[in-house]
C-alpha cells in the first residue's frame, strides 16, 4: 500500500539539459534562452567581474556576452559543451574590453564580494572573530587587486582555473589554448600572485 502511495507521488522534473535548451533556442524558442541566462548569469558575472575588476565593466561585459551568445547561437554546433562556448564568449568579450581600456588605473570602490560569503574563507592561526573577518576581507581585496594587476593572458587562466574551478582541459577549450600552454600560463600567473600576496602566504 505504502509502495503504491510512493508511486503515486510525481518525481521531481529533471532539469532540461543545456543542449536541449540550445536546440529549442535555435528553433526559435526565446524562453529557452531565458532559462540558459538564468542558469549561467551568476557564473558569467563571476568571470567578467574577476577579469574586469569592477562592477560597471563587468556588467557591460556580462550583457555583451549574453547578447553575442544569443546572436550566434544558431552557429553553435554542439562540438563543445554550451558552458564552454559561453565562457569563451564571456572571456573574449572581457579580454577585448580590457585591451581597449587604456592603461588607466581604476580603483574600484565597489564591494568586491558579498558579506555573507566571508565565513567560507579559512585562514589558519586566526580564531573566529572580528580579527579574522578583517583579515579575510583584507585578503580578499588583496587577491582581487593582485588578479587585476596580472597580464590579461595570465589573468584569464588564473580566473578560470583557480577561481572558477575549471579543469585544465576545460580552460584550454575556453581559451583555445593547448593544455601545456594553460599550465605554463597558470604557473607564471600564480608566481606573480604569490609575490604580490607574499604577506598572506
Amino acid at each position: 500500500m505504502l509502495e503504491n502511495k510512493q508511486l503515486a507521488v510525481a518525481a521531481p522534473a529533471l532539469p532540461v539539459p543545456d543542449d536541449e535548451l540550445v536546440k529549442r533556442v535555435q528553433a526559435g524558442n526565446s524562453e529557452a534562452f531565458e532559462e540558459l541566462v538564468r542558469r549561467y548569469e551568476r557564473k558569467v558575472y563571476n568571470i567578467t567581474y574577476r577579469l574586469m575588476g569592477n562592477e560597471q565593466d563587468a556588467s557591460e561585459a556580462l550583457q555583451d556576452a549574453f547578447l553575442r551568445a544569443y546572436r550566434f547561437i544558431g552557429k553553435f554546433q554542439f562540438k563543445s559543451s554550451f558552458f564552454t562556448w559561453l565562457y569563451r564568449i564571456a572571456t573574449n568579450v572581457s579580454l577585448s574590453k580590457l585591451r581597449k581600456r587604456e592603461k588607466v588605473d581604476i580603483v574600484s570602490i565597489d564591494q568586491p564580494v558579498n558579506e555573507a560569503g566571508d565565513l567560507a574563507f579559512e585562514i589558519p592561526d586566526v580564531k573566529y572573530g572580528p580579527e579574522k573577518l578583517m583579515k579575510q576581507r583584507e585578503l580578499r581585496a588583496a587577491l582581487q587587486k593582485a588578479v587585476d594587476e596580472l597580464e590579461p593572458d595570465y589573468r584569464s587562466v588564473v580566473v578560470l582555473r583557480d577561481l572558477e574551478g575549471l579543469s585544465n582541459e576545460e580552460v584550454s577549450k575556453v581559451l583555445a589554448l593547448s593544455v601545456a600552454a594553460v599550465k605554463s600560463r597558470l604557473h607564471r600567473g600564480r608566481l606573480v600572485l604569490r609575490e604580490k600576496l607574499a604577506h598572506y602566504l
Partner: protein
Amino acid sequence: MMKRKKQATECHDCGEVRELIAQYMGGDEDNELARALLLHAQSCTDCARLLHSLKRLVDYCHLEPNCEMPVTVRRELWVIIRRELYAD
C-alpha cells in the same frame, strides 16, 4: 612519464625541482612526483617555501566565494535580454 619520475626522484637541482613543482601544481599530482618534491623540500628551505606558498595560494583561490551579482546589474541584464528576445 618514467623519465620524468626518474628526474623527480634523482635530481636535487632546485631549477629542475621548480619545474617539477610547476608540473605538480599544474595538475600532475602523481604520488611519486609528490614524494620526490617532499623529499627535496625537506632539505631545501627555498623550494619548500615555494611549494608551500603556492599550495596556500591555490587553496585561498579555491575557497574564494562567488561574487554576489548586484540587483542592479541583474536588472539591467534582463532589460537588455528581453529587449533582444522580444524586439518585435
